[in-house]
């Protein structure tokens, strides 16, 4: 990333795009105190991740830099920042909003392509194989069958089935 922020290259509408997304509504309340970054357990192990920085960049309009960067996918969703934010920016929800915007703009993380594909195929995140069901029976647990049909219809309805790999 360049050290100089070029005003001409900023997208002033980006913040409004984020505000319109569920979870992004309180973005402009941020007064940049940094409580979020100080509370963040991911920040403790990876300096690249800083919620405060992501919020600043979003408000400034650094759209491309925010959306194409892996860091928006690094939030572990623990909600500590959200509990502590003195301005009630709802930062964990804001990270979800940013991810949703990123997906709309064509930046979806490969890990989520895989997860969405599993959900489409199985209606669940992990396959319950014949082996698993045999083991379950031995343990006295009921059998589990995949029932993905309704989930597929719902994914078609919201349009996210387009991310699914290897549709049958």
């Amino acid at each position, binding site marked *: 990333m360049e050290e100089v922020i070029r005003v001409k290259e900023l997208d002033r509408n980006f913040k409004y795009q984020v505000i319109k997304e569920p979870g992004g509504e309180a973005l402009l309340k941020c007064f940049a105190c940094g409580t979020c970054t100080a509370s963040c*357990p991911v920040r403790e192990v*990876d300096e690249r991740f800083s919620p405060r920085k992501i919020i600043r960049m979003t408000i400034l309009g650094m759209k491309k830099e925010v959306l194409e960067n892996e860091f928006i996918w690094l939030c572990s969703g623990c*909600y500590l920042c959200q*509990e502590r934010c003195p301005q009630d920016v709802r930062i964990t929800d804001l990270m979800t909003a940013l991810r949703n915007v990123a997906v709309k703009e064509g930046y979806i993380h490969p890990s989520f392509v895989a997860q969405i594909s599993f959900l489409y195929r199985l209606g669940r*995140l992990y396959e319950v194989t014949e082996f698993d069901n045999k083991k*379950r029976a031995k343990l006295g647990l009921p059998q589990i069958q995949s*029932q993905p049909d309704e989930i597929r219809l719902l994914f078609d309805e919201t349009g996210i089935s387009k991310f699914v790999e290897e549709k049958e």
Partner: protein
Amino acid sequence: MRYALFLGCTIPVRGQNYEMSARKVAEALGIEFVDVPEFSCCGFPAKSVDFMTSLLMSARNMAIAEEKGLDILTLCNACTVTLVEAQEEFRKHPELLEEVNKKLARIGKKYTGKIKVRHFARFLYEEYGVEKLKEHVKRPLENLNLAAHYGCHFIRPSEVYEEFDDPEHPVSLDRLIEATGARSVDYMEKEKCCGGGILGIKEEDALKMTKEKLDEVKKVNADAMISICPFCSIMYEGSQKKIEKLFETEYGIPVLYYPQVLGLAMGFTPEEMGFKLNRVRANKVLEKVGGDEKGRD
């Protein structure tokens, strides 16, 4: 006391000891779990891609429970927060529920927002009650020092949980542990996240987060960690060997599900509570309470 049991995706394949112990303990406490084969994933993984899709999946599951006239009990923290957050969204934005129902109509379902969704541990603490639990304890686990791991989504965001517990200094799981006769030990970083949320994004960061808590639990010499979430257990138990190798250290800390230890205290055998499926052997824990994995006393 009849409830729809919401297992989610992880427990049926990677947390069978949790499932076995929860089912047996519930039955003995007079709580009936109803299995609902039509339940799908809660919607959690879809949230990062498209919030509406996640709401739809949650609403579909809750609509199915509603048709049966059953409140939901969950075992996974992520399922809990996803369903409860969807309810809160619908409560705050009725127009959103309308939109969701228009889409659910395509599969002939409708959610009206009547049912309650709670984590089994919250239910035990809040409704069943610690005192009543104690009446079922036949073999108090007096010699055990256990380290409670709540997991983020059991208590946060606090606004969707009616503040049944403190989001940073919770006590509910400690009280539940104490009900078994064991000691619930304090340790640093108790409110810390397991790192599971970013395991698929950046494993190295996730494991570093997991390690931090294992280090703290080791410092206080706890006999085991107690978990109430399958993904937290995958991190602390399933990844423990990998972390030991990666960071050249040693833990050997058993990670047990709360119903497993409650069950032991209620007189179930370790075998009935699925101890054989625990990846970090809990032999020392069982010796301390006077038994072994096969269930011999």
